[in-house]
């Protein structure tokens, strides 16, 4: 029996194409109209696959005053996202299976969109020692994207080891590429504006 997740989307324009009708049966796109589906008069709305964001900061755990997984994912849904990646610079840092699973579960509970926690590349984002990348990959969160975002993994040997190690489970490193020595105390883009405003570029 078609449940609440069955739809007849009338008059949608997939990727801006000609208006047509899309059928959804129990959460899956199908070719024919399922019985008992709810109808939705799209009237020329553009249909796109749910947006995916590789890079967000949902602040939970640690800075729930700035955002929670619930408020962040609701904002994502309102922005058209059906999946977002949550960066590891939370408090505590998401550098162990326990924290990534907590974030993943918070996403599931909120239900606004899929939350894929990003695992830290190094312990505490300190750029000194590889975090337990395998444990995070095998965890319930199935982490595949790893990043020290907010900080740059600037030790070339450590980066090489991380890239090699991740090949075991098809992981990817999202590098916040920024040489810390060249940007020490930087406040804005260095150029005509920073020269005039007296801000370190």
């Amino acid at each position, binding site marked *: 029996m078609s449940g609440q997740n069955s739809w007849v989307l009338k008059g949608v324009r997939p990727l801006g194409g000609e208006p047509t009708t899309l059928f959804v049966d129990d959460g899956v796109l199908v070719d024919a109209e399922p019985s008992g589906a709810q109808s939705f008069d799209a009237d020329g709305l553009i249909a796109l696959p749910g947006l995916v964001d590789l890079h*967000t900061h949902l602040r939970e755990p640690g800075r729930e005053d700035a955002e929670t997984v619930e408020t962040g994912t609701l904002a994502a849904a309102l922005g058209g996202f059906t999946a977002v990646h949550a960066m590891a610079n939370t408090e505590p840092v998401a550098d162990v299976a326990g924290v990534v699973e907590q974030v993943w579960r918070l996403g599931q509970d909120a239900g606004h969109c899929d939350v894929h926690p990003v695992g830290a590349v190094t312990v505490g984002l300190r750029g000194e020692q590889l975090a337990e990348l395998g444990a995070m990959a095998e965890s319930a969160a199935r982490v595949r994207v790893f990043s020290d975002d907010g900080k740059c993994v600037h030790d070339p040997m450590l980066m090489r080891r991380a890239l090699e190690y991740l090949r075991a489970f098809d992981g990817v490193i999202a590098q916040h590429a920024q040489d810390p020595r060249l940007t020490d105390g930087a406040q804005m883009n260095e150029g005509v504006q920073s020269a005039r405003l007296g801000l370190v570029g």
Partner: protein
Amino acid sequence: MHFCHVSTAGSVELVRWAKSKGWNVTAEVTPHHLFLTDDLVASYDPVFKVNPPLRTADDVEALRAGLVDGTIDAVATDHAPHALEDKETEWAAAAFGMTGLETALAVVIAALTEHGVDDPAALWPLIADRMSARPAAIGRLSHQGQPLAAGAPANLVLVDAAAAWTVDPAQSASRGRNTPFAGRTLPARVTATFLRGRPTVLDGKPA
């Protein structure tokens, strides 16, 4: 390797060069780097403080071109909400970061339109690829970013391309009020979002 928040013309060149070598690299750009420039910092309003920082018009142009020609694979918001007190300070003491989830699609549409990609037949497939298909692939998400065809999970978004709207931080679902687009009128509004057929957003409001 995937490069976060590419923000300068030079970086676009480096990614283009790396890809020409056949290396397995991908790159993302944020909506604010596709749209805003560093002259906004003249107000010293920390809402414009972000890392990597807002750049020059030439950088914006190069990023838009890189996104269109595929050198840059994906748009990613780097959504960075902050508590009010972390932003309402003098510039040097303010936290880096901007919210972006609720404005991303509209800003990217505005940026691409300004860049000349205004034919719907070109615009929407480009957005579907750079904001759904490719990021899903980079993130190894098999069930997201699929073409809207039978068999795919019903993860989709319905967009009213004609609805312009004005950004009001007080209305945002995000706890962060630090959107750099406050007061700006942007094109296109999300009407509905479906997560595996379940509506998470209807009529522009939480379902």
